[in-house]
């Protein structure tokens, strides 16, 4: 068969870059978002105040930041808090959250599903069940449609 000797470099051009009407997502300044306070959360876990730790770790979610490290750090911290709960306390903990809290918890749960470690999936599934009964399928839809996520 004959070989195409004409250059095909044009196939690698990203035409969307040259489109003057290209949609650019608005980026809000997210540099100041550092995620929840690690020291505060750790001390609350150590002192056994798990409900307080949950409230604290859901504060200051790093939604707008482009810094991936902050996001991963926060996810690790959230996982730590979620794993330290006893199964029987899960339901009460979820009840203590308001609507936005349940939505945020769902976002962290799905983020945790993305990178499963040894026992994380089992714990996250238990939390998922309780969060689902509190937030309904609507909270999962909001995880899927959120443009800026944790």
């Amino acid at each position, binding site marked *: 068969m004959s070989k195409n000797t004409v250059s095909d470099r044009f196939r690698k051009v990203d035409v969307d870059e040259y489109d003057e*009407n290209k*949609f650019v997502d*608005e980026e809000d300044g997210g540099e100041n978002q550092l995620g929840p306070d690690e020291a505060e959360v750790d001390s609350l876990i150590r002192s056994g105040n798990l409900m307080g730790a949950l409230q604290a770790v859901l504060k200051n979610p790093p939604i707008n930041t482009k810094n991936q490290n902050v996001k991963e750090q926060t996810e690790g911290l959230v996982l730590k808090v979620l794993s330290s709960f006893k199964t029987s306390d899960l339901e009460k903990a979820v009840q203590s959250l308001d*609507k936005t809290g349940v*939505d945020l918890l769902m976002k962290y749960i799905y983020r945790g599903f993305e990178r499963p470690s040894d026992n994380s999936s089992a714990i996250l599934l238990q939390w998922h069940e309780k969060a689902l009964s509190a*937030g*309904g*399928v*609507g*909270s999962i*839809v*909001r995880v899927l*449609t*959120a*443009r800026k996520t944790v």
Partner: protein
Amino acid sequence: MSLYSFGLEPLSCHAWNKDRTQIAISPNSNVVHIYQKQGKEWTKIHELTEHSGRITGIDWAPESNRIVTCASDRNAYVWTLKDGVWKPTLVLVRINRAATCVKWSPLENKFALGSGAKLISVCYFEKENDWWLSKHIKKPINSTVLSLDWHPNNILLAAGSADLHCRIFSTYIKDIEDKPGPTPWGSKMPFGEVLLEYKECGGWVHSVCFSPSGDALAWVSHNSAISVANATQGKEVTQLTTEHLPLLSMLYVSETEIVAAGHDCCPYQFSYKGPGCLEFVKKVDIPKQSSKGNMSAMQHFRNLDKKATIEEEETGLGSLHQNSITQLCILEGPKAKVEKFSSVGLDGAMVVWDFKVFHSKLDLQLS
């Protein structure tokens, strides 16, 4: 409440004539069927076959008895009834993508067409040349226009689009109408002026609706939320996130009550009484009574053999519609006090909901 099935094909859109004896529907194809009500049945009397693409929007103007249809073939036709036959007139909408929705204005002298070309085409009839002209609203729309609704003053137009924004535009065309007076949304209204632009909708805005007075605008978005913007309170927006699947269509049934329906296959009622006071009222559907009759021993064993279970399984949904509801339409009553509304869905069924029934049922429960 009554259900009528128009076949197995999903119903993309529907529109009623003035006295609600005829309905125009499109069964997910490029044809519009017009059915006439005869007793309890519906018989097909007309077929409108001019479009070459799937029909995405139908609107029937009650007073002037004209139908406007738009389709994915980038065209819109205005149909007029002449000697018992519907005759189409092509409208030059000048779009290079599919049309997504179309709505007659309250005075029926113009209509708005939303499209995937990131613009809204406002069309009006020019008598001198005997054709329909269009004017485009382009800025600042960044993606497909998914839904439209007119303000009672015939000038303001609300548009929900896939760029996660909800906007109100002015469509004042000085050739055909007088200058509009000021409204709570604003007073300077040249064509294309943006009077409201809300960008935190959270998801594609599937449906927008003005309240009967026009002072409030409600919309439903794909993040399973319903929001209301109140012009009289500084255009403040109140959002309510629901625990249901996303809603696709909504209606105002009174100045404060809203009915919305979507992928959950049944309508829900919401109530807006002021900024910060948007709440869920109830599900507007009477759940099916599951008939757990006595099963004979023979049936027990038959079930065990065939399905490995002795329970009777419900394979249908508990709601009247068996698939997502795509569009709601007012049937009876003025906009401020709707008594009946209709819904069509992907299951090919059209259901007429009686709002009075639910009011009286509620009274019986309380007394």
